[in-house]
């Protein structure tokens, strides 16, 4: 009598390219750090309207953003890596969003979800900020009104690609400093 063991379909992240031998494995630090960072994103959900509802679906069991290591949401900007702005940002909210971004520690990334956060969307009017990139830099824009959870996951994968490829101290690069200076952020 034999016991049939179901083959596990859990996929683990492959180790980065490196030199392997008995008892040791050598690779560069930025590859390891990049791999660790990209698979352990702590997102801060800045949900102001209907896109936030779609994000809840993305986090729930069916789509399960936890599969990509972004299971732990951080509601404190101090501990978050990824600012996810989901929904209409009123002009009165803009300084608050900016402050939340400034409170985040490096390294930090921003994902703008949906038409409103990316461009103001249908709310082309006096009270609505016409895209969050007027107050903070944005890494990935996810279009849609609202975007489907698949699109959000795709955006997360794009962020992961960015994280993997970036140098470990992006904050020291002149381009990054110039970008922040453009927004008046130190």
């Amino acid at each position: 009598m034999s016991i049939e063991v179901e083959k596990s379909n859990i996929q683990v992240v492959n180790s980065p390219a490196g030199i392997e031998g008995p008892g040791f494995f050598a690779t560069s630090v930025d590859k390891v750090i990049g791999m660790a960072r990209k698979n352990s994103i702590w997102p801060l959900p800045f949900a102001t309207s209907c896109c936030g509802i779609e994000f809840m679906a993305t986090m729930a069991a069916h789509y399960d953003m936890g599969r990509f290591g972004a299971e732990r949401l951080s509601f404190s900007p101090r501990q978050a890596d990824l600012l996810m702005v989901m929904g209409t940002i009123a002009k009165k909210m803009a300084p608050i969003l900016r402050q939340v971004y400034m409170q985040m520690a490096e390294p930090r990334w921003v994902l703008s979800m949906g038409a409103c956060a990316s461009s103001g969307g249908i709310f082309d009017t006096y009270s609505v900020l016409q895209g969050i990139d007027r107050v903070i830099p944005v890494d990935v824009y996810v279009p849609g009104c609202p975007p489907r959870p698949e699109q959000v996951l795709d955006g997360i994968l794009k962020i992961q690609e960015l994280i993997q490829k970036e140098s470990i101290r992006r904050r020291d690069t002149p381009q990054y400093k110039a970008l922040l200076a453009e927004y008046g952020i130190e």
Partner: protein
Amino acid sequence: MEDILPVIESKLRETFGDAIVSAEMSKDFPVFTIKKDKIIDVVKFLYDEPEMQFRFLTDLCGIHFPDNKGQELGVIYHLHNLRRNWRIRLRIFFALNDSVVPTLTTVFSTANWMERETYDFFGITFKGHPNMKRILNVDDLGGFPMLKEFPLEDPTRTDKNDSMFGR
């Protein structure tokens, strides 16, 4: 429903005479147009008078008719007599360059935020208001968005190509 327009109108005309510019029914709603400088006295009278007792301010808001020269701006007051369930509307009209109105906060404390909102959107200043500043919009908005000449679309937006909107 009993016809309350003549009851209230005669009371008001008796006390205020010429300050009552007009009294009419708009659908099923009695509407009185009052001279601007008498409005607070009229509301106070309607509040105190035992037969009137309009002790609830339902709403206070501004209005803009750019074609009524000399009477472009207005303030509308909705009053409610909770005892008899009477509702009336009072209106005052004045010129755009004369948009200073006496405050109603001396009679109704609830007028505080309503008047701030009216200032925020129409630029109507309420004289004697304890805290006359914007309430909903950002402080540096630079304009009063409910005035008809205020641009509807955000002028700083650059991605809108007119040819895509048929204009």
